[in-house]
């Protein structure tokens, strides 16, 4: 429980401290914060592993009056993944800022916004209160929009504004659902909602909340803001935005559909989500295929990868009915969220290294970089293996689980999407790889410190390790898993 409180408050305290303390304390403070956060995340994971979900009623007031938090296996897995990504980003940001000579404005802003983003993520992962989740994702969205605008170019500002508009529409729709839920039931707690008397307006409330969260998760057709926004941010910020931010709103969707109102998941509704996800997989992949800049390819790949996550809805809970394959699909999607987070952060950090080395991320300018930056290229290659779902990566485990459950469920179109998405990913990731491994180099790169290069490599390697040692995370994800998917194993 102590570690949970630490994880909730540490990033916020760090943000306040960076604001209040003089500049020279900033970097040591940032690194100390991520170190403590990593330790706290491991402690919390160990505690959940040993003795089940950790509960916390804030202020000692139980719902419906107060707000309850609950760290289950899924929340803890995301917390741990976020702490890893945050640590990597903090390390890489130090080098990045020196290499790109970031001014005092952006350097200051980055540390504060990163801490705020982290605080928001941890708050969302464990919250059980629909309105508290609203405040959490608002904090997340504002920090994320500010990170997109950090570079200050007209392009970045336009991208940030487009993101902002989608975020505003999303928060209004989500809030409308929350309002209807409270107006009908007088409770906001997810656990209490699961035990509610169903009301006629519940389907509308769930629909509004879902629509809002889809806009924030950038599911097709709400994806248009994502690629430009993620590509416009500085590379460490892009890593946070792509790897972590969409996972928060996706997690709320999971909480709503599987825990708060599982009885409302009609087969048509869950199929709709899966169809949108499938289109996102294909469309994001096709658009990634035609990009000529590394960061845009990686950003469009996020659109595609987020699409996979939505296959969970028909496979793991359609109509609230429990099927033998539910557990596999559920765990598979969560594995995908985790391994995508690690691999995508690695890719953006590696892209940042490439930009620092050759001053551009155009594929043509990256030619032959493998000889100068072997570690970075290795990181990109390992991350690509995960994203394409090739063995032995975490992405492979995820897709394997999803595939077997899709076939068991007789949903062969979804299985086709999984195969097609994998092929597309292999195709769009082949192009940067081909450029990086080219024989001739176009630009003589500047040297990049090896420690910096080791950061994305570590992240990408951990995405592979997630596949090699999948038993432990697999079991961790089962702790406190919502009922409908539980009995199928």
């Amino acid at each position, binding site marked *: 429980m102590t570690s949970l409180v630490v994880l909730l408050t540490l990033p*916020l305290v760090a943000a306040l401290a960076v604001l*209040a303390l003089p500049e020279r304390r900033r970097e040591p403070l940032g690194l100390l914060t991520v170190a403590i956060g990593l330790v706290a995340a491991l402690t919390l994971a160990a505690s959940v592993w040993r003795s089940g979900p950790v509960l916390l009623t804030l*202020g000692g007031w139980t719902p419906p009056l*107060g707000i309850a938090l609950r760290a289950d296996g899924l929340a803890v897995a995301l917390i741990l993944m976020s702490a890893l990504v945050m640590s990597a980003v903090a390390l890489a940001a130090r080098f990045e800022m020196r290499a790109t000579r970031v001014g005092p404005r952006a350097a200051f802003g980055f540390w504060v916004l990163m801490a705020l983003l982290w605080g928001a993520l941890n708050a969302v992962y464990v919250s059980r209160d629909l309105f508290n989740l609203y405040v959490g994702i608002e904090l997340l969205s504002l920090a994320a929009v*500010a990170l997109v605008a950090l570079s200050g170019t007209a392009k970045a500002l336009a991208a940030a504004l487009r993101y902002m508009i989608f975020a505003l529409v999303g928060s209004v729709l989500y809030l409308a659902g929350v309002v209807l839920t409270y107006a009908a039931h007088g409770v906001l707690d997810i656990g209490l909602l699961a035990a509610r*008397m169903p009301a006629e307006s519940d389907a509308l409330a769930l629909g509004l909340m879902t629509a809002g969260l889809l806009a924030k998760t950038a599911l097709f057709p709400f994806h248009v803001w994502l690629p430009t926004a993620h590509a416009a941010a500085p590379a460490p910020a892009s890593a946070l935005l792509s790897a972590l931010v969409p996972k928060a709103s996706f997690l709320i969707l999971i909480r709503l559909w599987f825990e708060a109102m599982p009885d409302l998941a009609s087969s048509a509704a869950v199929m709709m989500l899966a169809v949108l996800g499938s289109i996102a997989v294909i469309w994001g992949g096709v658009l990634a295929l035609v990009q000529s800049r590394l960061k845009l390819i990686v950003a469009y790949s996020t659109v595609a990868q987020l699409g996979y996550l939505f296959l969970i809805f028909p496979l793991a809970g359609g109509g609230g009915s429990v099927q033998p394959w539910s557990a596999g699909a559920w765990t598979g999607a969560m594995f995908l969220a985790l391994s995508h987070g690690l691999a995508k952060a690695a890719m953006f950090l590696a892209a940042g290294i490439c930009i620092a080395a050759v001053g551009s991320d155009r594929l043509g300018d990256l030619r032959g970089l493998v000889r100068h930056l072997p570690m970075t290229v290795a990181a990109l290659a390992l991350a690509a293996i995960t994203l394409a779902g090739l063995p032995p990566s975490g992405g492979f485990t995820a897709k394997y689980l999803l595939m077997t459950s899709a076939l068991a469920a007789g949903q062969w179109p979804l299985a086709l999407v999984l195969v097609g998405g994998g092929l597309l990913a292999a195709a769009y990731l082949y192009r940067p790889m081909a450029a990086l491994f080219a024989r001739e180099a176009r630009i003589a790169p500047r040297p990049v410190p090896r420690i910096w290069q080791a950061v994305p490599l570590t992240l990408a390697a951990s995405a592979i390790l997630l596949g090699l040692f999948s038993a432990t995370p697999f079991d961790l994800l089962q702790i406190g898993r919502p009922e409908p998917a539980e009995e199928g194993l």
Partner: protein
Amino acid sequence: MSLALDLALCALILGVSLAAVAGAGVFRAVIFFITYGLFVAIGWARLGAYDVALAEAAIGAGLTGVLLLTAQGRLRRVQADRTERPGAPLPAALAGGAVTLALAWAWFVLPVPEAPDVAQALPQSGAGNPVTAVLLNFRAWDTLLESIVLLAALLGVWMLARDADWDAPLGPRYHARPSGVLAYFGRVLPPIGLIFGVYLVWAGTETVGGAFQGGTVLAGVVLVAMMAQVLPPPRASKRLLRAALVLGPGVFLLSGLAAAALGGSFLSLSAALAKPAILIIEAALTVSIAVTLALLVIGPAEAPEPAP
């Protein structure tokens, strides 16, 4: 009779909002939005939600209005391209209409649920005003995060400064004739506002008022003082300013952590200490909210414009 009043009020609210959305010209839209905030505040008064009426009067009719007005002035000054591309009216109208119809339908089928029993827990909360008890005690985590949201927005606004301007004072360089009406107004209003803001916080634990309302009123008079050149624009790097920004969330966080360290739950307030604790937290929050809101409206650091 009472219904006629509410009908007239709602007709005005709808008319004004329609004018703000559909009327040509941004300035007109902004002015209609300012009057909109006022009518909605009256609406909250009619609904018996006095704390919300106060918040809406201070924020909706006051701060948001001046935020939009100054922004509109800035846009005109940089002579931004005003060509208005047609949007996507039909799909947008369909979406808007669908949302309205859905909510209207929901209103008639919503059951009346049993609300959480605030009254029963109120004696242990340390506040006589149930809204304050919910904000500062029962749902303190929301309020803490909300004060951080304000800070995140301010950080985001600060990041919009140009790199060369980062060390410059925040916002435009407001000036006024030292003996003029504006300067006089800027000197007379702040003391009254200060007393009223402090009163709102003090009284807010028992009756209408609270940290957010008090902070907003204070932010309003700070803005008037800055525009009247009574208060100089601060630099973002100023230590005192930074301290004022983190004071509220900091005190809130530390008191929550102290409760956890002393064996309670995170953010818990023991019934004996709750009243003074809420007052201290609210006082600290008010300072931070006032400064944050005023600086949000003032905008990012700007080098002074060269004299024309």
